């Protein structure tokens, strides 16, 4: 029982990332009808927003520290971040430590801008072209984005720690009455899960309870009629694209402490997220979220020792296997709507 619970918990953080990316992908697909292969790159850009903010906050200048001396007796020259000068060393240090959560605020305008430029500058011109062209051009864009990041940040993963308040793990099992030490869970993963839940709830609430969201939903259902009613649906869809980019970016920002960001993390996630979208059902938002968590948890179950001993290698292929089975038995995915992507 405790082992099962542990696997469910382990699957949650990866599942959250899948769900967030898949949600953005589905938003874009449902509104604009574009298959966005660059969505993983947006996830990666978000992660590098966190890295950049960390770098900016740690910008330092050199001062001569009279209180310390090196081994020759000369005063030591130390690097002091500017932020220490402005807020004092203690507040400054904690600001740097909290750079990942702060990067949420930092990344929102950046990701919205990126999403806006991407949609207006490139994707707009691909509405009427075949899906294969859309896949190809966004695939090219993903390569370009990841190479730009590689040029500026190098090819190695950049560790970006979580705030010290959230480092370490806690014993989840004791809270539920299991033996101590059976279910150890890192704090940050729990934070990530709740963060993902808040974002997902936010997106759904936005679509469900605002007038803007209502128009967008109407546009997803029947774009032409909404246009005929005198509503500029294109403008709203562009905003939805920016929001989807923002969701992917935020998923990336918060993922940095779990996995040090590198330039190809986006593509690694994208391939799986596409599988998630297809399993959930192309164009279905709840389907994307459900499939994200489901596949995340399945993946972590499949990597249990007992399962791997029974079926070697199952942890590597489980997601693809599930996708194949679902596509062949339920061609529209778990919650797919009729008439989406069917030719």
């Amino acid at each position, binding site marked *: 029982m405790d082992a099962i619970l542990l696997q469910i918990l382990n699957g949650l953080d990866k599942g959250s990332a899948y769900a967030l990316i898949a949600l953005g992908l589905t938003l874009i697909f449902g509104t604009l009808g574009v*298959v966005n292969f660059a969505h993983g790159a947006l996830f990666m850009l978000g992660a590098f927003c966190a890295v950049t903010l960390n770098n900016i906050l740690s910008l330092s200048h050199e001062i001569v520290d009279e209180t310390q001396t090196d081994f020759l007796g000369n005063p030591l020259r130390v690097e002091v971040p500017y932020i220490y000068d402005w807020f004092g060393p203690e507040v400054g240090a904690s600001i740097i430590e909290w750079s990942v959560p702060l990067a949420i605020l930092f990344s929102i305008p950046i990701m919205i801008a990126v999403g806006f430029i991407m949609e207006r500058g*490139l994707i707009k*011109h691909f509405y009427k072209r*075949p*899906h*294969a*062209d859309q*896949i*190809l*051009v966004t*695939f*090219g*864009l*993903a*390569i*370009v984005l990841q*190479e*730009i990041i*590689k*040029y500026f940040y190098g090819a190695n993963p950049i560790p970006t720690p979580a705030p010290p308040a959230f480092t370490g793990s806690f014993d989840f099992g004791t809270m539920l009455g299991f033996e101590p030490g059976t279910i150890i869970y890192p704090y940050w993963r729990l934070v990530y899960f709740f963060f993902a839940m808040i974002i997902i709830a936010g997106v759904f609430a936005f679509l469900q309870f605002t007038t803007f969201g209502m128009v967008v939903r109407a546009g997803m259902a029947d774009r032409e009629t909404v246009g005929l009613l005198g509503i500029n649906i294109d403008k709203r869809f562009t905003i939805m694209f920016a929001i989807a980019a923002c969701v992917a970016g935020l998923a990336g920002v918060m993922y940095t402490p779990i996995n040090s960001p590198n330039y190809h993390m986006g*593509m690694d996630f994208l*391939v799986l997220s*596409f*599988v998630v979208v*297809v399993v959930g059902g*192309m164009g279905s938002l709840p389907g994307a979220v459900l499939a994200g968590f489901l596949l995340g948890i399945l993946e972590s179950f499949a990597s249990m020792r007992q399962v791997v001993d029974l079926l*070697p*290698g199952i942890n*590597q*292929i489980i997601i*693809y*296997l599930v*996708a*194949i089975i679902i*596509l*062949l038995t339920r*061609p529209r995915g778990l919650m797919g709507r009729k008439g989406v*992507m069917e*030719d």
Partner: protein
Amino acid sequence: MLGLEKKDTRLFLIVIGLTMLAPFLLNPFPEGSEMAQFNAGYPDLMQRFVIFGIFAIGFNILFGLTGYLSFGHAAFLGVGSYAAMWMFKLFGMNVVPALLLSVVLSGLFAVLIGYISLRRSGIYFSILTLAFAMMSYALAYSVLATDMDGPDKQGLMQKGLTGGETGLQLSVQDPRILGAKAGADGNTPVPNFFGIEMRSATEMNVGDWVFTFSAGYYFSAFVMLIAFYISIRIFRSPFGMMLRAIKSNQQRLNYTGLNPKPYMLAAFVVSGMYAGLAGGLMVAMDPLAGPERMFWTASGEVVLMTILGGVGTLIGPVLGAGLIKYMENILSKINSEILHQWFAWMPDGLEDLVVTLIYPFIGKGWHLTLGLMFMAVVIFLPGGLVEGGQRIMAALRGRKAKDKKSDADADVKPAE
């Protein structure tokens, strides 16, 4: 000639000429000169040109004719590689049986994957093929690498069927029942074509130029020419027309009472066999096979090649393959020092500026150039380099001819 139309015969002859004279044509700069680094006439790279050419030709039969975008074609490349490798290990170093086995095995594999994947179309087909390829990759990487019969039962030097991360390598302890266990020098033997070693090469010195003729290159080139010929025949056959009909309107085909499924499966299998052949040739040139050949980036690469060169054109995929491999091997070698040498004639500040501006696009950043080029092609030239060439030719012929041509183009889809 050989049952080809006049236009195709001309194209085929040009391709024959280009491939046979490649050691000269790709070595335009004398040895030791500053431009010598742009020479692509060394065997290793030329082999890659033709091998990836085969891969892209095969991919084009599927994507160019039927419009089904497979994102998992590298799986067949990998299967072909492993099959050829096992042939080398178990039987002998002759490349012919090895290539045959690669083609047959990858064909069977393609029947299996194609039968399942082709039930769906569009993005679903892409995802299914991608999923299958990634599964094959994961299996080759982990499961098939675990030895089930205990360690080194047959004296084989690798783990399991695929060797996992390190992949398959030749070893002097391999059984090789029809050939020598070791070469004359006691090392692992070299793949050969009835005695002609793939690695053997003769050099020819003409003035400052050094031309290398490698047996491996000419063997691969012949295989590619055969593959190219078959692809022309497929493009011009009723079967090819059928595939094009599938691309333009599958529903209408259904209504006329024809079942498109067998045709598509045949196209998928043929293109899988091409990929397997390319994989087998890779191993024949350099006896190594690893799981990374099945990774989805490898599948993405062949998509890039085909699109860049021109989808649905005969020669496009070969051009695209050549261009990408050239960039990968030549553009990536340029570093900032070479750039500084080139722009040394500029004033100092300007020189630094120019070098800084160009630097991200070359050397290790060649992928960036590739990505930008690819995007530009998809946006502006959906027909790839071939269409670009046609447009330039049309522009050169003057306006009147161009009008005529554009009329003709209106009838003829880019899938010509």
